[in-house]
């Protein structure tokens, strides 16, 4: 945390805001209290005026920094949208539920439950802390929906508007608990009525035994038809697809046990096994519930951390600043540059734009969009930068699904997935055959035992632990990578990463970085022309363009038209009727041969070469130890620039590494291909701009980004520039996770094999089988999570 103290007021270091508790960069005073910004001060004033300062006594600095711009909520009053958001509506009474992610403490609850003091139109508000939502009853004649939202935003609790209602998951959970409760109730009572049976009854009390049997049957019917119906439905669905899934043996076992017991009771030949049957369903459901809970808690982090931080430029009080896309809200103004992805459905403010929707539709011809047209998330801008207004917030998962679009899928499917799919299908058949043989055997040895043994075998052999091992191991690994700012497209990439034996680097933006470059200009340019250059380079996302944009101080108010970016060559644009070209020597029209130790960027105005920038970028810190650790895996450096840096690079890389300069994007692609034809698994590390083809061709392509994520769907992973020094560790981690996965496979196989032996020989009751089954899956999942966690501590940067 850094805090810049206002020079005029000699206050102590680390002054924190009375409202939000954040360090204050500039201080504002009111009532002897310090505030970090006008937003926080306003919130305090509102609360103070309305006698709501108890807010501050419940928790220390409970406020949320309101530095972020307030959203615009006017659209909430549109009848269509209002209908979707509102829960109940009548002329004088309406209720609405808002999601408020900012809820975090007792003060939040207190304030949000006293909203009626801020506006008398609000009748009542109630917080649900677990869901981070507020239920508000209000009088629509006195207050509009948008005013409520605006009011909440003003006190720091901006509601998040989601138009799709997400209630399905909650209901599913309730369904399970209802089934569980019913099964538990019936199981307990069936056991009670089975007591006489357990102790042995006199023949004289036969009629009582019959009564108990019938009661048991009555209690089991809801268990069979309601509590256990998920298993039957899933089995039925798999039959319809002419396949057999892992629920089939369970369903069969349940049917066998229930049918046999019913037959026994109706024909009065025996008491049946209904205690086992109801218990079985009860424990199966407990297992399922527990599994759900475990997976939820393990998987929760993933949603937030393993997604790459795609950033866009958003307008903050006349200044463009990069923000992460999940901080975008409707109404925000964003600026998108050439080749950047539009992160949310937005409306175009500029006159026109060309958008390439190939990630969404597969059609790569750019579409022309006119002013105030809607642009859909996932389109890629071609040409001039444009300004857009966000219409609808996008979920990160939407973009991730674009990333996983077929067009960017590598041909080879995950090997483990194939193995598991095949194994699971065969496994089920094998289980059925074993169960059949066991049943026949027991029919001759002890027919009374046959049904129980058959059920145990069917229960215990369930291969779900096997099926869960891979997604959990790789999913967890993906999370660990995400923690270190290495974001993978999907879990399959880890599997491929583990097999890599050749690493190819791009130079600009990868091995060299943009920090503190040494930039000079040789030639002559006017101040105005400098400004033009800055304007033009700001349109491009190439690392050298960003360096120049940062370097040039002059600004220009003119705008560029006819902007073009030619990968590997340069950028071109028209400004004040002058054609400006910035890029390589041939592109700018320079025929001279210039020897230099730096990268050269030529500038031409109206086809006259005006000179060139010399940019010597420094190599990233601590990259050499990483390259040394990679040893012979590191096989080449490909650069699109001239060989000015050759000697510098030769020092960095070991002599066995090929250093290739002046490589066009196509040359890079061919180089990767030739390595692959030698049977190597190639990892390509590049900036994703002029090596997109190579990234796609390689077995694993990683794009390096520094501040903003230029989204390159052709790559398999996005790595933050600072973390490139950890590259060898990432490869090692990928290898270890493959080892962990194999171990998990062995464990779950042993589980099944041992338990099956016990079941076949009649030493395992169906009840124990029902308990063992979820325990085995949970232990396998737990093992892989713990193993990954221990790895993570080992590999933490030294």
């Amino acid at each position: 945390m850094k805090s810049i103290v206002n020079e005029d007021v000699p206050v102590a270091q680390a002054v924190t805001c009375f409202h939000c508790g954040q360090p204050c960069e500039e201080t504002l005073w009111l009532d002897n209290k310090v505030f970090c910004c006008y937003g926080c001060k306003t919130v305090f004033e509102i609360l103070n005026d309305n006698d709501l300062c108890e807010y501050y006594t419940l928790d220390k600095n409970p406020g949320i920094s309101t530095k972020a711009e307030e959203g615009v909520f006017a659209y909430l009053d549109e009848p269509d949208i209002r209908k979707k958001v509102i829960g109940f509506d009548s002329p004088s009474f309406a209720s609405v539920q808002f999601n408020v992610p900012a809820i975090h403490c007792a003060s939040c609850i207190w304030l949000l439950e006293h909203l009626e003091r801020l506006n008398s139109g609000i009748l009542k508000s109630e917080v649900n802390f677990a869901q981070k939502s507020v239920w508000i009853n209000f009088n629509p004649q006195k207050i509009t929906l948008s005013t409520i939202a605006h009011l909440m935003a003003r006190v720091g609790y901006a509601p998040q508007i989601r138009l799709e209602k997400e209630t399905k998951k909650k209901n599913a959970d309730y369904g399970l608990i209802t089934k569980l409760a019913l099964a538990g109730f019936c199981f307990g009572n069936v056991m009670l009525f089975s007591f006489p049976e357990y102790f042995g009854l006199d023949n004289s009390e036969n009629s009582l035994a019959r009564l108990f049997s019938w009661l048991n049957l009555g209690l089991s019917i809801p268990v069979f038809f309601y509590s256990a119906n998920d298993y039957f439905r899933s089995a039925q669905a798999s039959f319809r697809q002419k396949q057999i899934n892992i629920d089939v043996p369970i369903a069969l076992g349940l049917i066998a046990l229930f049918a046999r017991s019913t037959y026994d009771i109706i024909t009065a030949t025996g008491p049946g096994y209904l205690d086992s049957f109801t218990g079985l369903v009860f424990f199966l459901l407990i297992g399922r519930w527990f599994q759900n809970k475990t997976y939820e808690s393990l998987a929760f982090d993933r949603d937030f951390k393993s997604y790459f931080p795609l950033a866009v430029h958003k307008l903050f009080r006349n200044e463009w600043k990069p923000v992460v896309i999940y901080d975008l809200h409707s109404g925000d103004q964003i600026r998108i540059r050439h080749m950047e992805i539009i992160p949310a459905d937005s409306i175009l403010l500029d006159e026109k734009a060309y958008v390439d929707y190939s990630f969404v539709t597969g059609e790569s011809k750019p579409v022309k969009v006119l002013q105030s047209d809607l642009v859909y998330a996932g389109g890629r801008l071609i040409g001039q930068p444009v300004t857009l207004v966000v219409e609808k917030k996008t979920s990160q998962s939407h973009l991730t699904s674009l990333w996983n679009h077929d067009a960017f899928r590598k041909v080879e499917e995950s090997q483990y997935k194939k193995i598991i799919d095949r194994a699971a299908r065969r496994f089920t058949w094998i289980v059925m055959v074993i169960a059949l043989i066991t049943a026949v055997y027991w029919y001759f040895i002890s027919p009374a035992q046959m049904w129980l043994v058959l059920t145990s075998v069917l229960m215990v052999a369930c291969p779900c632990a096997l099926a869960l091992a891979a997604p959990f191991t790789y999913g967890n690994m993906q999370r660990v990578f995400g923690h270190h700012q290495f974001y993978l497209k999907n879990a399959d990439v880890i599997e491929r990463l583990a097999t890599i034996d050749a690493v190819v680097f791009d130079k600009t933006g990868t091995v060299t970085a943009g920090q503190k470059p040494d930039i000079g200009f040789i030639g002559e340019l006017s101040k105005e022309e400098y400004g033009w250059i800055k304007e033009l380079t700001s349109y491009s996302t190439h690392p050298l363009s960003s360096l120049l944009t940062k370097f040039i101080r002059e600004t220009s108010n003119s705008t560029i038209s006819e902007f073009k970016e030619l990968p590997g060559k340069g950028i071109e644009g028209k400004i004040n009727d002058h054609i400006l070209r910035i890029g390589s020597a041939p592109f700018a029209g320079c025929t001279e041969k210039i020897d230099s130790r730096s990268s050269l960027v030529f500038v031409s105005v109206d086809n006259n070469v005006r000179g060139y920038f010399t940019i010597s970028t420094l190599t990233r810190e601590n990259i050499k130890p990483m390259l040394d650790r990679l040893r012979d895996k590191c096989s080449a450096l490909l650069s699109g620039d001239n060989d000015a840096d050759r000697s510098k690079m030769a020092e960095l890389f070991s002599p066995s590494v090929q250093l290739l300069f002046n490589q066009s994007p196509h040359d890079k692609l061919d180089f990767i291909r030739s390595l692959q034809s030698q049977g190597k698994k190639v990892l390509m590390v590049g900036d994703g701009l002029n090596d997109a083809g190579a990234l796609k061709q390689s077995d694993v392509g990683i794009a390096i980004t520094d501040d903003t994520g230029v989204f390159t769907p052709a790559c398999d992973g996005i790595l933050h520039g600072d973390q490139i020094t950890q590259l060898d560790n990432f490869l090692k981690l990928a290898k270890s996770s493959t080892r962990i996965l194999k171990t998990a496979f062995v464990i779950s196989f042993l589980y099944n094999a041992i338990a099956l032996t016990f079941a076949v020989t009649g030493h395992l009751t169906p009840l124990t089988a029902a308990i063992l089954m979820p325990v085995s899956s949970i232990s396998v999942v737990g093992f892989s999570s713990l193993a990954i966690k221990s790895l993570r501590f080992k590999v933490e940067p030294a």
Partner: protein
Amino acid sequence: MSLPEGGEVYHMNIIILLIGISLTIGIIFLVIFLWSMKSGQYDDTYTPSIRMLFEDKKKKEHGKGDK
């Protein structure tokens, strides 16, 4: 085994009555549980515990509408 006929019938009746009562009570509790779950009493187990600690010094202008 020298219980008279009538004794056994008497036992049976008692047992049937007890079973009836125990099942009824069990079902009542089951229904209560299911109802409480459906009505959302387990949705949020945190806020109510905080809410009851708030000292309400507000003037009684609104009718209290607490659940």
